[in-house]
């Protein structure tokens, strides 16, 4: 998956309206929409796209989308 597609699809999946688009430096935890439902959605999104499991501890360490990408593994992206 390309990082740009990942950013767009995640933005859509989380139904984000407070920022127009995501970039790798977007601060997830400061988003208005970042609540327990958003966290559950991130877990589902990563499972669906990468068949990867994110633990609660890993999620607690996420601040930016870059952190999320690193958790999934940079090697899983084409660029």
């Amino acid at each position, binding site marked *: 998956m390309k990082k740009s597609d990942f950013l767009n699809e995640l933005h859509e999946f989380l139904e984000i309206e407070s920022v127009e688009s995501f970039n790798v430096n977007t601060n997830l935890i400061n988003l208005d929409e970042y609540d327990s439902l958003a966290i559950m959605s991130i877990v589902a999104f990563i499972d669906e796209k990468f068949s990867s499991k994110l633990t609660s501890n890993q999620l*607690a360490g996420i601040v930016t989308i870059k952190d999320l990408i690193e958790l999934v593994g940079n090697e899983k992206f084409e660029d």
Partner: protein
Amino acid sequence: MSSQISIIATYLPKNILTNQMISDEFPHWNPEKIELKIGIKERHIVSDNETALDLAINACEKAFEKYDRELIDFVILCTQSPDYFLPTSACILQSKLKLRNNIGAFDINLGCSGFVYGLAIAKAFISSKIAKSVLLVMSETYTKHINKLDFANRSIFGDGASAIIIEECADSKIHEFSLGTDGTGANNLIIPTGGMRKKWIPDAPLTEDETGNKRTDNNLFMDGPEIFNFTIETVPALIEEVLLKNALLLAEVDYFIFHQANKFMLDYLRKKIKIPKEKFYINMLYTGNTVSSTIPIALKDCIENRIVKPGDKVLLCGFGVGYSWGATIITI
């Protein structure tokens, strides 16, 4: 001896907590968003002096409007909100319902998997001739365990009870079971204090999670992401196993009723298991997640509204706290 479900009755407490009421207390929560995502608009909440035993009595009395209580020869009550450590709530229930004395009664302490386990026990008791008519009661008041400032859990859980009568019959209508347990998940859905391991703490300190929900160790704690992970790992394999045990293909099942945890999780599970939308029940709009009663409430709705019809094969599946899970197939 074979067994079947003869009666399903449900009871919800009168007080209602709406999404708007949650949003009034916690403006960050948008009522429409709660409804859209978790599929819940309202949930019923017990009053301070109302317990799971009270809800259970009401559900059973509704069941006895259509069934002779003298026939009941076993009572199984599933609850995690008993009136006392001891005596067993099922014993008190026997007396409150004026049931016969020459019958057995006990509680089972399970959450969202409880109905499937209760059904398994009832079937086993009937097939071994220990009982002929089992009253299986699920009653839960999780809201008593939830902190008023824990808006995530308050939006999900509702209180409620259900009473099911399982009887002996000629042709088996309750088929094979798959059950499972993984206690390594115990800490992910737990009330840490109040038992013997850690006593209830007066003036326990409030802690806040990263999304602003507050609770103490005396309250219900649910690690949402871990519970989600558990569910999406366990349930697809459970469905595969129970289909195999019943020698059925997914396409041969007429309808699927899963524990109504929340809409988002159910939608995700349905897609992952590849169950057609029209064969999959999602409706907790006016009840919320009532823990062990969600499947009986759903089953009653399906029968009354002809979503399922006599002869249909229906897969029932419960999963949650413990971790504990179970599934079976019944014929309507």
